């Protein structure tokens, strides 16, 4: 088995974008069901982004639903990459929610289930860390939180982040760097 090269990955992404354009043309021509392919293709990474930003599975579900439906009704406005356009809808909704509506009790714990991979004591430590991490993330400005979530939760490259957020790699590295420093300071006393 051969490992795909970066050229292979770039080609696959390019093919997928062409497919997206074809699907969009089908939906705009009246094939409503074709939209399910786009939902299937992009819902997981977008859900993770909304979840990472809001810390609440319920809110992440609402943001995902509202964003996909909004995108459906504005599909004729897509210029360029559909996935980047859709990402910005979800990202902006997540940031608006953080800015305007966030309430303090929200946390990842809402639906946290034991993984079965850890002892009960380890699970307790993990839950505690997760809560503390969520609290610490909640104190960061939205732009730093967004950069941290995209890099460390979603595992995206800086180049991909720069395309999605329409900014430079250097600016993003700085945001991630600042987010890391802030998190480290916030969590150090408790976990050092």
């Amino acid at each position: 088995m051969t490992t795909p090269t970066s050229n292979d990955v770039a080609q696959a992404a390019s093919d997928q974008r062409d497919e997206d354009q074809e699907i969009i043309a089908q939906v705009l021509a009246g094939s409503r069901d074709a939209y399910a392919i786009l939902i299937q293709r992009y819902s997981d990474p977008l859900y993770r982004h909304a979840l990472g930003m809001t810390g609440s599975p319920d809110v992440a579900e609402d943001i995902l639903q509202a964003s996909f439906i909004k995108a459906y009704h504005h599909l004729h406005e897509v210029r360029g990459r559909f996935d980047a356009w859709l990402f910005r809808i979800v990202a902006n909704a997540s940031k608006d929610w953080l800015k305007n509506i966030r309430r303090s009790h929200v946390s990842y714990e809402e639906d946290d289930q034991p993984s079965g991979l850890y002892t009960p004591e380890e699970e307790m430590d993990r839950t505690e860390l997760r809560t503390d991490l969520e609290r610490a993330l909640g104190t960061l400005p939205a732009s730093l939180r967004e950069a941290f979530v995209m890099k460390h939760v979603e595992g995206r490259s800086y180049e991909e982040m720069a395309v999605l957020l329409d900014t430079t790699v250097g600016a993003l590295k700085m945001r991630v760097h600042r987010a890391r420093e802030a998190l480290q300071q916030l969590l150090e006393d408790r976990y050092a």
Partner: protein
Amino acid sequence: MTDQNNPPVPESEEEDGDPQAANPELWKKITGEAEMLRDRKTPVFLKQQIMDSLDDKEANDRLWKRLTGEVEGLSDRFADEPPRPWYEKLFKKDK
């Protein structure tokens, strides 16, 4: 010269990780926990729910406004009950 408020932008992906070098154990815990979220998937019911709701634009507009506070009246959801007119008490007394 380095301005303390504007430190230089890290040149490489490795370099941008300076803070964790000071406390690798803590950083391992933080990133380990963050990466746990990478396995999260969209709930299966949600995809169908989105398809079922595609044509209900009004309901989606309401959901959107509730989520993002896009319009005036956002605070309606959290606002205290508005004060009642002064004469309402008089009517109640009469009953």
